[in-house]
């Protein structure tokens, strides 16, 4: 890379008094007095959320309204600020279409005071059960309010489309049995 030496011109006397600089600066700022304001008035106006936005982490259900999380605890492991806390457990016996999955979270807490919205939990999830969605406003009056429990996480997450249904395929194979 060639180096291009730039000659810095010596300042004239008038320039060195700093006054013309101030005057032109004042002119620029004065013009802004009359220009339209660009601030977004937040609660009334809301920003458009772009795809791939990383909002509050949530748990999602599959299109049949079934829990997807199997409490493998990988998100808990990968979470840099240790915001996620999972108590694993077995799938309740009354969920007959899911007992073959065996494992489900008993409790699933995300401490939003700790969460840094990095999205590693979404990236690591082998079941595509945790997503950082559009929700960006998390407030509360107490520390306890800022911990999202399992019910709240599902309420925030809702249902997302699923192309795989891997546990359903497994159930079909199990019912079909071996070929012999």
């Amino acid at each position, binding site marked *: 890379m060639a180096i291009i030496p730039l000659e810095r011109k010596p300042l004239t006397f008038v320039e060195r008094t700093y006054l013309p600089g*101030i005057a032109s*600066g*004042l002119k*620029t*700022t*004065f013009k*802004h*007095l009359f*220009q*339209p*304001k*660009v*601030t977004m*008035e937040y609660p009334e106006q809301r920003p458009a959320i772009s795809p791939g936005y990383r909002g509050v982490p949530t748990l999602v259900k599959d299109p049949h309204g079934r829990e997807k999380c199997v409490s493998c605890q990988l998100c808990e492991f990968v979470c840099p600020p240790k915001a996620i806390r999972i108590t694993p457990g077995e799938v309740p016996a009354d969920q007959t279409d899911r007992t073959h999955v065996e494992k489900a979270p008993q409790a699933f807490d995300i401490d939003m005071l700790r969460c840094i919205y990095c999205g590693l939990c979404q990236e690591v999830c082998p079941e595509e059960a945790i997503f950082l969605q559009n929700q960006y406003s998390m407030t509360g009056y107490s520390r306890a309010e800022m911990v999202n429990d399992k019910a709240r996480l599902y309420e925030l997450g809702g249902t997302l489309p699923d192309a795989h249904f891997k546990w359903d395929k497994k159930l079909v194979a199990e019912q079909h049995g071996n070929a012999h």
Partner: protein
Amino acid sequence: MADFYFNLPLWFRSLVQGLAVIAVIFPIAGMCSMAERKVSAWLQGRPGPNRALPFWFAWVPVVGPLLQRLGIFHVMADGGKMLFKEDSLPGHVNKFYFILAPIIAMMPALTTVTTVPFGAYFDVAGNVIPLGLARVDIGLLAVFAVSSLGVYSLILAGWASNSKYPFLGGVRASAQLISYELAMTLSVIPVFLWINAPGQPGTMSLARAVEFQSQPGLLGGAWFIFIMPVAALIFLVSLFAETNRHPFDMAEGEADLVGGFHTEYGAFKWGLFFVAEYSHMLIGSGVFTLLFLGGWNPLPWVTLSQLAVWLHVAQLPLVVGVLSIAIFLAKVLALIFFFMWVRWTVPRFRYDQVMEIGWKKLLPLAIANLIAYAIGIAVLQK
């Protein structure tokens, strides 16, 4: 009613007048804080504070939303907050001086008001009678003497806080004020050389300076800013430095000193510093208006008396008085706007640059200016 008022004892009248002036200065200083926020927002393409609205005011059509958009109620909200929030006293400070400092900040700010005339009316004989709390002949000297005491509050606050940033802020404030005091004083001497003809009893009265700018003729009606622009510039720059305004606010430069001398202050004590700073600006702007911008004269070469005659109100002292005060205040507020405008345009100087401008640039310039005008006036008035 006027007679009744003038028959009251002098001490009572002085008290009422004093309280009246304070009652005007204080809200203006408060409003200035909101104006600062609004002006800064507008200069930066923002709407600024526009949320606070008392629920009972929300019903008022047009005016309610307008005042809300102007952020008027934020002033009240801020004031209420500063009054009622916890006024914490850090454990490591010198409590007596720590509390004394903001009080001392307010005292010179309000005291100087007494010597600054802010309007005029005509008596029956057609003489101009200036409006002011104290009609003292030393005028400007009193302003300089008392307002310089304001720096003690900064030093006291910095020292009593027992913490390094306030301490540095206090030291900077004292050094800076001393540096610019010289240039400022020297810059106004030509004005009084001009006013005081040789052989006559001299005066330092500010009203006299206004009177001098109200004479007929090309030179007589010209404001002093046209006659001595360099002196006006020096005075203005020094005024910025004296009031600790951008780009000279070394004492509270938040980038290097957190909050400067008021780092450890909060709530109402901090609010007092805030109001004191705006009071200083008001008085400084007033003095500048009186000395260089023709005081209560509406326009250069157009005097108050001429205006009164055109409006057929010359015989109504009350109307003329209010008119003069309005003109004076308009000029002062325009200057305050200028202060804010500069603040949001010019970046802050470095501390060594502040010292260099003060000692190496302004002081020699002020001395040279004084000598030039002294020679000029001597030649002219021979």
